[in-house]
Structure formats: C-alpha cells, structure tokens
C-alpha cells in the first residue's frame, strides 16, 4: 500500500484514464485517481505532468494526439483523418437510377457516342443531370465533337471508370458478343419476368446481373 507506483504504471494509468474519460481531465482530477500510498501528494502532480509529456511525445505519428484544452488534457483523433472517420457514420449512399446505368453502359461499350446516340438506343431523352453526374464522378468525359449538324459532344469512358471497376483496360470488359449471346438466351426464357421486374421498379436487377456473371467472368469490384 505504501509502495509508490513506478513511472511506467503511472503513465499507463494516466493514458487509460484520458482515453476512457470521454472528457478532458485536469492534472488535479488525474491525481485524485490515486490513493496516498500510490502517489506522493506533493511530487505526484509533477510526476503526472511528466507522464503527460511522455504520452504527448509517444502519440507523434499515430492516429490520435494529446491536446491540452481549457479544462485539462484529452486525447483526440487527428483531424486530418476525419475524411475516413466520418465514413463510420455515413448514411448509405443512394443508388443510381436505371437510366444512369444504361447511359453509362452505352458510353462504355459504344464510345465515342453523342447524347443523341444514347437517346436513340434508349428510346427516351437523356437528362442533362445524368451526364453531369457521370462527368462529375469522373467516369466519362467529352472526347470531341462529331462533325455533324450541331457538332454534338462525343462522350467516352475514362481511366477513372477503369480504376473504379478494377479493370486494366477496356479490353478487360466482357466482350459484347458474350453479353449479346446471353441476352438472346435469356430472351427466350426470361423475357416475361424481366419485363415485369422492369415495370416494378427502375433499379438494376440483381437477377439479370447474377445470371450474366455466370457467363461472363468479371473482376470483382467491391466485395
């Protein structure tokens, strides 16, 4: 009982207390954690300050730092890491619409294409929003203008697109004829359910995607 704590143990306790407290702790409050036999009443404060200095040094280069604020000391996660830490509480991102995915698919497989090209295949207008989203996401870019009336922009897919989908080059995309084969196979069997599903919601259907994955070997993008 009368044995004073050694420096290592003292530092461990101070560290644990600061980490667990959930609020800043003053030197006085830290000192109050010890019984008289454990820490000398006078020297104790100095020893605690020494521990704090050490802990501050040891935090260099780590994910957290020791910070002195008005009411005492606290450990805090480095602000620079906030972009990652914030993702802990990020809401689930929204899903992209069917229209956006179709537009993207057409640009990737038929590049370079104009907006009118896309519209003619999809049979409906392509909203400027969709193109803007894809441009902002860095998946498509304007690669030139077609030499036709109105000189419409030609769109193509980017390296960013390849990176995101973990592809080395556009050659790694499943060849269209395989996709096409699959379509024709499927058409014979699956037309009905797919049509129903389409009218039910405009989301990409995992059913089709999975069926496709069986035929077409794909690199995994995200787990």
């Amino acid at each position, binding site marked *: 009982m009368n044995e004073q704590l050694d420096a290592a143990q003292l530092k461990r306790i101070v560290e644990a207390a*600061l*980490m*667990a407290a*959930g609020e800043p702790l003053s030197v006085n409050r830290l000192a109050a954690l010890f019984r008289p036999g454990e820490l000398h009443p006078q020297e104790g404060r100095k020893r605690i300050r020494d521990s704090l200095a050490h802990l501050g040094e040891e935090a260099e280069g780590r994910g*957290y730092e020791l*910070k002195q604020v008005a009411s005492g000391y*606290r*450990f*805090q*996660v*480095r*602000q620079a*890491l*906030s972009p990652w*830490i*914030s*993702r802990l*509480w*990020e809401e*689930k*991102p*929204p*899903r*992209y619409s069917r229209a956006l*995915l*179709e537009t*993207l*698919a*057409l640009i990737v497989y038929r590049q370079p294409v104009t907006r*009118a*090209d896309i*519209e*003619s*295949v*999809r*049979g409906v207008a392509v909203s400027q929003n969709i193109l803007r989203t894809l441009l902002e996401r860095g998946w498509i870019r304007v690669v030139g203008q077609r030499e*036709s*009336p*109105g000189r419409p922009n030609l769109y193509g897919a980017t390296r960013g697109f390849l990176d*995101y*989908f973990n*592809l080395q080059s556009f050659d790694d995309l*499943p060849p269209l004829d395989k*996709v*096409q084969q*699959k*379509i*024709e196979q499927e*058409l014979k069997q699956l037309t009905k359910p*797919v049509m129903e599903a*389409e009218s039910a919601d405009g989301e*990409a*259907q995992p059913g*089709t*995607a999975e069926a*496709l994955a069986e035929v*077409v070997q*794909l690199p995994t*993008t*995200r787990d």
Partner: protein
Amino acid sequence: MTADSKPAEAVAVVDGQTVDKLPADLYIPPDALVVFLETFEGPLDLLLYLIRRRNLDLLELSVADITDQYMSYIDLMIELKLDLAGEYLVMAATLAEIKSRLLLPRQEDAEEEDDPRMALIERLQEYERIKSAAHQIGDLPRMDRDIFPLSPERPERVREQAHPQVDLREVLAALVDVMRRSEAFLHHAVRQEPLSVRDRMANVLAVLDQAKEFVPFTELFKPEEGRAGVVVTFLAITELLREGMADLTQSEPFAPIYLRAASEPVST
C-alpha cells in the same frame, strides 16, 4: 421448522456427523429471516439450499427429510406473511406426493418402476447448473464495470455525400436491358451499312408529305434497320425540326409524340 425450543428433535445424522441445524435459524432476528427467505429464487432454489446445506449428494436425496424441512420453511413464510408464491405450494404438493409414493409398500413386480424422485432430481440438477452458470456470467468481466472502451474526442465530421457504389454487373445488366429494348440490336446487331442523314431526311419528309397529317413519332423508325438506322432516323428528324421542315407535337409530358410536315416550308 416447527417452532422454538425443540432443538433436540431436529438433530440429524449426516454422513456420520451429528448436525443440529434448527437453532441457528431460530436465533436470527425476524427481519433478517425475512431477508433470508426472500433471497430464494423460488421453490427449487430453496430446496437446493436445504439439500446443499446438509452437504448431501443430490442423487441420495432423502425426500422424507427434505419434505419436512421444506414444509417448515413454508410454514415460516406463512407466519411471517411473506408473499408466498403459488409455486412454493405446488412444490410442497409435489414433495408430499413423492414422499407418499415412497412410503407405499412396494409391489414385487414394480421393482423396475421409475424412482419417483428422479424427475425432481433432474429438475434440481438442471436448475443448479443454470444457477451456477448465472454466477459465472455475473463474474465475467463486463463493460461499465471491468471493461472501459476508449472514447477520445472525435474529429469534426466531414460532410461528404458518399457516391453510390456500382457493381460492373449492374452496368452490364443495364446494357442488356437497353439493348433488348432497342429491338434493332436483337435482329441485326452488327450489320452496318452507310446511311446518310440527308437521305433519311428526304425519306422521312416523303412519309410525312404522303400522310398529310400527324404521324406517330415511333412509326418513323424501322427496327429492322438496326441501331444505326434508328440513330440516323433520329438525327434526320432532329435536323428536319431544326430546319423548320417538320413540326412536332406532344400534348403533355410522356404522351405520344407526333410529327407532320411543316405547313409552310421556310425558305432558306
């Protein structure tokens, strides 16, 4: 526990030891006794206490003895006006029944008959197991008491709307669907022939002139021409509209679109 002043009567011989257990309880102040009795978690708990207190093996349960003791506790509880749950009385009845069955003269052919104590012993064993498991769980290190997670100050949150995640398969599925919808793709997907927008403009204009009225937009397309044909027709139509050679009407968003030749061709 038949009342006071008869300690000698309850002397029991347990494993060769003479044990007098009655007086101890009698000298407890009534308050303490109430507390004591209230700590039991039910009849099984009380029964287990009575057995364990005598350091007996469960399997050698002496129902007659235990029943007597149990009944005396029940009496005591009634006397002290404790909230006596019905379960205690049910157990009393069970014990009495076992006791009486054991007292009945055994018939010779009933030798194989189950020991009437067995069901009770099994219940006691299972309860004891769970009771001790509860102790163990209570002893496990636990949050708030033994375990303290770290909670350093968190960095300020960065508001960053996450991008939707897309699987390549979704893109392919979208492609499959859009191609399927564009019938052209299905029939002659790859055959391409040079098609001129100018030529097509003339064709479209001819169709419109012939009809002399509104033509549904979709009728101008010939799916059998393939995707390229669709594109060219579309470009031709847009060009005609741009040059004022055709008019387009749509009564409301998403309603069918109609085309007709411009009533007064604008001279260039």
